[in-house]
């Protein structure tokens, strides 16, 4: 793929002696949504967390092979992990706002980055909340606690927080699995909007969601990529028997 934002080659991952990812090769296109699907324990979450090195904090975790973002190896000797995580934001299954105000949640990464200018902060916070489709719901109570928001709003707040530091890639690990259908469809609409500006990688157990939001889909099974293709192909005419069995619910 010529416009790959993230280029993964021969990537293996181990927890201690257990090898959980086997020779992953995947080119993730720029400003598109790439969905990772597969049964529980297939390695898709480990894989997505490898992209911004969130697995580094797990003792005895080890990676080999390369993950290039814009041609730079994220596991290379000179890689700056803090800068990597600014460029590659992440949203988790369970929304995890800090026990602070809405404003302070979104400002958090910016302040850590050294930003003190109130007007600049205000501007970025409004923009981030707008992009996360939350601004109109919270603009009159920015200093209220984030924990008072509904589950769907909290998740959009976490997305706003991730967007505030101006990332290039947003990783989403089952971002809507704990939300009701209305909140889910808001997140899906948001993903659709965001792909104009961000490269999005989403892990989901909801296959209809993968079909709805993504441009490309990778099917993982037992730590391997079984099939990676245009989402239409995966859901209309997969080439691998295992993919077929999985997307038709014959396989668990």
């Amino acid at each position, binding site marked *: 793929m010529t416009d790959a934002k993230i280029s993964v080659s021969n990537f293996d991952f181990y927890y201690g002696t257990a090898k959980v990812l086997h020779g992953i090769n995947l080119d993730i296109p720029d400003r598109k949504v790439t969905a990772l699907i597969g049964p529980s324990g297939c390695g898709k979450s480990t894989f997505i967390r490898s992209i911004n090195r969130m697995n580094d904090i797990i003792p005895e975790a080890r990676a080999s092979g390369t993950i290039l973002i814009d041609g730079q190896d994220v596991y290379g000797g000179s890689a700056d992990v803090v800068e990597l995580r600014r460029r590659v934001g992440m949203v988790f299954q369970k929304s995890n706002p800090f026990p602070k105000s809405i404003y302070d949640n979104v400002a958090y990464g910016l302040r850590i980055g050294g930003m003190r200018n109130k007007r600049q902060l205000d501007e970025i916070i409004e923009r981030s909340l707008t992009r996360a489709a939350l601004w109109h719901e919270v603009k009159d109570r920015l200093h209220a606690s984030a924990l008072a928001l509904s589950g769907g709003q909290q998740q959009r707040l976490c997305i706003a927080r991730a967007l505030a530091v101006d990332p290039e890639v947003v990783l989403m690990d089952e971002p809507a699995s704990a939300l009701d259908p209305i909140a889910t469809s808001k997140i899906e609409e948001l993903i659709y909007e965001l792909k104009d500006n961000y490269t999005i990688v989403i892990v989901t157990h909801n296959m209809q969601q993968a079909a709805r939001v993504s441009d490309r889909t990778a099917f993982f099974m037992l730590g391997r990529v079984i099939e990676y293709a245009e989402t239409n192909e995966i859901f209309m005419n997969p080439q691998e028997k295992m993919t077929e069995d999985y997307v038709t*619910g014959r396989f668990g």
Partner: protein
Amino acid sequence: MTIPRHFDKDIDELKHLLLRMGAMVEDAMARSIKALLERDSALAEEVIANDDEIDRMEVLIDQKTIELIAKMQPAASDLRFVATIMKITPELERIADLAQDVCERAIELNREPLLRPLVSLPQLAYDAQAMVRDALNAFVRGDADLARRVITQDDNVDALTESSFRSLLTYMLEDARNISSAIRLTFIGKYFERMADGATNICEMVVYLVEGKMIKHTATIAAVK
């Protein structure tokens, strides 16, 4: 591990309904040919009367298919199966309508003096019938090769239609009193040719079902590109 699916029962039921409709359509077609060749107006009337049942079958299959989409959100081969059923059902219904049209013309012909011989018309009818039968067999067996063979036979049916038309034109030129019957027979030739087209469309969907490839209009699309 393969999980047994409730969904498979729905799919089987749908397949079963479509085959029942297919059998009804084949039967209507066979009887329309018999009514035409044996000048049997009573049989023709029967075929016309039975068409309502085929129409009801179409509605039933449509309902079941839409329900299945709503409830199961089919993917991959399930999705192709459902799409195929939705495209095949109206083709079958149209073939039955054409058999009914043959019967209407046959009744009219029986009120007129016999125009002999029917030239290539019987052959045309039998070939179209074989195509419809093979198209349904290709669907049942998921046999894309058979489907492709049926599609190639469509040119033969087109040629027979043309040849039948030319002979009938000669009769009309010979004697103006033949015109009325010859025109009805020209229509009938066209009806069988359209039934063969229906079989071709079914076969194109069978290839899609089995291989995921849309082969419909590929020649035309390639020519435009």
